[in-house]
């Protein structure tokens, strides 16, 4: 009974994740698609926690839901006329895409089953203790260099995002004029 409940949680979470992701893929409305992504991310966070990765789950909620998704929504708001949706075609090369989806699914799913993964025989009983402390220790010992590099990367992303998004009206106008004259 307990095991069944255990499984049921997984299936529900998986359904939320895949269903909302599919909605994102096929929905005609951009804003709705973005919001359905919220469920995907939450579902994934739940799956992570279900799989014993509590720290990653929390990070997922904070960064993805709190950061990336908000960013995406801002992007949607900035660039889309929200009310005037629906007349424009949203997709392209749909037939090929679906063909790709089906064929690749048939090709990749067998990989999950035929590969002799070295799975622990009694995985279910692996102690579900908090992973926060081992991750913290790992980040400051073995993974110290990647940790530092990640900080450099964030710095660069910060600078880069600012540089690109910050308008330089004078330069832009001038350059645009030049560009059209070059054409």
């Amino acid at each position: 009974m307990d095991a069944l409940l255990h499984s049921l949680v997984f299936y529900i979470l998986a359904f939320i994740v895949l269903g909302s992701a599919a909605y994102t893929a096929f929905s005609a409305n951009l804003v709705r698609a973005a919001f359905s992504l919220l469920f995907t991310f939450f579902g994934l966070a739940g799956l992570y926690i279900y799989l014993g990765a509590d720290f990653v789950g929390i990070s997922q909620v904070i960064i993805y839901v709190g950061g990336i998704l908000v960013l995406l929504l801002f992007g949607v708001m900035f660039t889309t006329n929200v009310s005037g949706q629906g007349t424009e075609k949203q997709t392209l090369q749909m037939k090929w895409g679906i063909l790709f989806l089906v064929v690749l699914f048939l090709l990749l799913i067998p990989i999950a089953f035929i590969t002799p993964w070295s799975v622990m025989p009694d995985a279910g009983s692996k102690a579900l203790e908090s992973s926060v402390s081992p991750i913290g220790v790992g980040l400051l010992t073995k993974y110290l260099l990647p940790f530092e590099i990640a900080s450099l990367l964030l710095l660069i992303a910060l600078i880069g995002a600012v540089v690109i998004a910050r308008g330089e009206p004078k330069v832009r106008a001038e350059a645009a004029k030049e560009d059209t004259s070059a054409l």
Partner: protein
Amino acid sequence: MAVGLEHCLVVSISLFLLGVFIVMTQRNGIRVLMGIELILNAANLNLIAFNRFLPNTDVNGSIFAVFVIILAAAEAAVALAIVLAIYQQFSTVNLDEISSMKH
């Protein structure tokens, strides 16, 4: 039926393919970014699932996943900045209309 590694893999592969599918078929640049996020999340799900089911006791998979999340955030920031710059320039984020360079 007890949940095993295979179940997780099926979810992650589906998620991955949906992400790639979005990237290929959506005209809107921001949706393409959503697709990329799905791909990264699929990989993360893989990492977490393997970390859970493989016989090691370390947390390498989780640490990998943490890094991936950080990277995804950075990449999303940069990509969105570029998309916004494109919108200023072309007044559209439909990627098929932004194809002045070809052949």
